[in-house]
């Protein structure tokens, strides 16, 4: 038994400090987004004050896509024999869980915006429906991760499920182009017209929202990853303690 090497300890301390700095930066960024979004930016010509919800709603959707992209990439790296490592499985699980939280918030914030705008909390619009499907698919992925099995078997099937679920992400993004949709087309950069429809303080606030919530995503995923790492370690140590106890009992008996 020995304490971890000094390099490992200092590495851990550096990660802890970096995470703390990241957390504070994300918090300041979100606070600034809220302040600008609620009190500084002007009301929209058509939507009025409801436009203020759009400083958080698109960033939620973007972060969800990012989270699922990271989960898919990590899953791919796990499935690739040359890069297979447990850390990629853990990263995929952590990122997907955070992605599910952000997808849920995308649906809820969109619904709150839709009620006064469209007159309904929910409509079976292609974008909304495919987003709800995305939410359910990744909930299924998280459930699949909890199905008992050997570590590599569980990680392998989870990785395949993550890649299958990711197919829905481009469908969600392009659904407003493919089908007739009640939801508005992309505003920041419209792929058809190649124009942006957000300007001035509104554009900067929206951009800050994207950056801040991305930082929040990184912070949450890092903590979720560390929690998964500790849970794995706890399982291993618990088993070893139990085995050592049994051996001691056998020797004593």
């Amino acid at each position, binding site marked *: *038994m*020995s*304490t*971890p*090497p000094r390099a*490992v300890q200092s590495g851990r301390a550096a990660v802890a400090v970096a995470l703390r700095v990241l957390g504070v930066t994300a918090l300041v960024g*979100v606070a600034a987004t*809220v302040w600008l*979004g*609620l009190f500084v930016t002007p009301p929209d010509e058509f939507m*009025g*004050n*409801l436009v*203020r*919800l759009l400083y*958080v*709603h698109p960033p*939620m959707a973007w972060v969800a896509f990012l989270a699922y992209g990271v989960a898919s990439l990590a899953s791919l790296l796990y499935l690739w024999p040359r890069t297979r490592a*447990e*850390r990629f499985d853990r990263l995929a699980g952590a990122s997907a869980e955070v992605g599910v*939280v952000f997808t849920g*918030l995308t649906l*809820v*914030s969109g619904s*709150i*915006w839709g009620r006064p705008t469209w007159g309904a909390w929910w409509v079976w619009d292609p974008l909304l429906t495919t987003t709800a499907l995305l939410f359910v698919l990744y909930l299924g992925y998280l459930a699949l991760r909890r199905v*008992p*099995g*050997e*570590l590599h078997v*569980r990680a392998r099937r989870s990785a395949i499920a993550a890649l299958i679920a990711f197919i829905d992400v481009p469908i969600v993004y392009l659904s407003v182009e493919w089908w007739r949709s009640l939801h508005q087309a992309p505003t920041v950069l419209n792929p058809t017209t190649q124009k942006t429809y957000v300007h001035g303080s509104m554009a900067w606030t929206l951009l800050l929202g994207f950056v801040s919530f991305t930082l*929040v995503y990184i*912070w*949450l995923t890092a*903590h979720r990853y*560390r*929690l998964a*790492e*500790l*849970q*794995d*370690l*706890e*399982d*291993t*140590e*618990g*088993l*070893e*303690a*139990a*085995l*050592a*106890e*049994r*051996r*001691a009992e*056998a*020797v*004593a008996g």
Partner: protein
Amino acid sequence: MNGYVEAGYVVVLGTLGTYGVTLVARERSARRRVGAGSNKARNAAGSGTSAPAGSGTSARAGTSVPQGDASAREHRAVEEEGPGSAPRAMSP
């Protein structure tokens, strides 16, 4: 201000805040349990028999989980006590 706008911000910020705080609390709790589990393994190993290969803090120092990980997971699944529980001794 619009009530819908306020509700949207409260839901988004409240959910993210609650999730973040919960994660940090679970992480701290798991760290404490891992420390306690490590001491338990050390005590058990020191009371009459040698510790199994790869046990104790050597596992904690590395980034990957040692060989016992798969069976440990199966053990946890059998016990069905959730991620926070310390596994009990395995049945023969």
